């Protein structure tokens, strides 16, 4: 069979493939934000479950990342909040960082690790104000505005 005879066939296959690709439509402007943070207590295996938002994961990799292999502090609860883009911001008492995690196929992938304090956080909490995730250290009244790529602005109130 000559190539010239195959040309219409190749053309038809190409058109149909392009058509199929065009049918994967996308909804833009989705707001994933969570207005109030979730405070989750891990079980003995380190699993946490956010019943309201239907989310389950294990915090042990997070603890390993925060404290390293040697030091293991007992974490009674972790706090997480989600911004409009869908990134999870996770921290806990005694952490120095806020972990920005991107949800994937059955995983949470580290997008950024924001160091918010040289000292361990005493009583951190997330708020969601005007589309921005805030980290409040209620013990010291420090407020940090957080974006995926880091601290946007550092306020010292009190």
């Amino acid at each position, binding site marked *: 069979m000559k190539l010239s005879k195959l040309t219409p066939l190749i053309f038809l296959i190409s058109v149909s493939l392009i058509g199929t690709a065009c049918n994967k439509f996308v909804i833009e402007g989705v707001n994933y934000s969570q207005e*109030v943070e979730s405070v989750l207590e891990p079980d003995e295996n380190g699993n946490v479950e956010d019943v*309201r938002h239907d989310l389950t994961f294990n915090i042990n990799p997070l603890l390993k990342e925060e404290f390293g292999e040697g030091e293991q502090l007992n974490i009674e609860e972790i706090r997480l909040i989600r911004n409009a883009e869908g990134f999870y911001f996770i921290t806990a008492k005694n952490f120095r960082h806020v972990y920005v995690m991107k949800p994937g196929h059955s995983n949470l992938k580290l997008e950024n690790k924001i160091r918010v304090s040289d000292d361990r956080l005493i009583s951190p909490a*997330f*708020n969601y104000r005007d589309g921005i995730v805030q980290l409040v250290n*209620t013990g010291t*009244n420090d*407020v940090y505005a957080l974006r995926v790529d880091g601290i946007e602005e550092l306020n010292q109130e009190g």
Partner: protein
Amino acid sequence: MTHATKQLITLTFLVLFGWTSVHAQTSDYQIKKGFQATYTVLNEAIENAGSVSELDTVVSEISEFEAEFSDHKELLDNALYPETFESSFAKLKQDANNTERRLLIIESQDEKLSELSSELSSYKNELERLSNTSDSLRNAINKSEQSERELAALVQQYRQSLEFRDNAVLNIVDSLFITYRDLKTETSADLVEFYDNRKIVSQDNPLEFISDVVEENIQILKTDEGTLQTEDYLRMHVVQTRFSEVWNQIGNDLVNIYAGSNKEEWKTEIESKLSDWEASSSRNMWASIDEYLESNDVDLGAFDSNKSFYASIEAFINDATDLSRENVITDENYEQFQSFYAFWNGKIKSEWGDFVQEGDVLTMTQISAIDSEIMNWRDEAKPRSFFIPILLGISLLTIVGLIIVLARK
């Protein structure tokens, strides 16, 4: 300090804590938790409120609570999903309204019960006085060495004092019934809960009173040594029947309200005493009727219930009617008829009439049936007059004799 008061203090603390937190840097999550904690305390305070005034305090706390958190309405609408700030308060206020309605009913019924308690107290005194009179009269009769006439007067007084006592018991029973019938509404479950948490002083407890009255009546019947007459036993049986009827209607409610944690024990005790009383009063009454009939030469055979009494009367009348039919010449059956008729009309239908029907000795239908059979018996037992047939026979013989004499001539 009551449980409710403690709760209110906790509540005030929580509201204050909430207020302080609002003015410092705090987390939305903390606001949500504070709201939920206060909400739970308020909810429990509504459930546990023991009076309308206590509930009024809780309601005013709810208003303060609502005002304190109204700045966070938007946040809470989100955090409380699927509830909202408004729906949460609507629910709380609705619960408070329901509890207030329930408490108002309970308080009004509690008032009625208090009235009854004071009534009960005066009845107890009256009954005690009458019982004392009866006791001293019975003692006087037992020890009496007086003349027959004086003794008869004492017995008469004793019987009269028992009659007064029985009337007092009937009045008490009616009073109890009217009061508790009014209480027997959909609120009785609330009352049970209310009274479970309230210590009832034994002197206010109608169950104690009922148990004592029943016990005294059993003792009167058991210790009687022939001083009472059939009429007295009939009256006592009526009192017992009425008492049991009322107990069957309101007994469960009384036990629920007043027996606290000993519901089964009280129920069993009173019902066992009532059963004992019923057996004694019934036995004495039937024995006394039988004795009365025997003393009037009417032998009905054995009977110890409405059914067997009716059957005995019916059999007695039928036999007597048959006998009368067979012996038309003698007037012996007619005398028996008259004796029974005097008992039937004079005692059963007149003197004892009210007790016979109220005490279910005989029903109206049974009395009517016996009336008709008695009329039948009377017709058969009435002695026939043979004067006219004999006169007619003599006249006929005379005429025949005259005709023969005239013919011979």
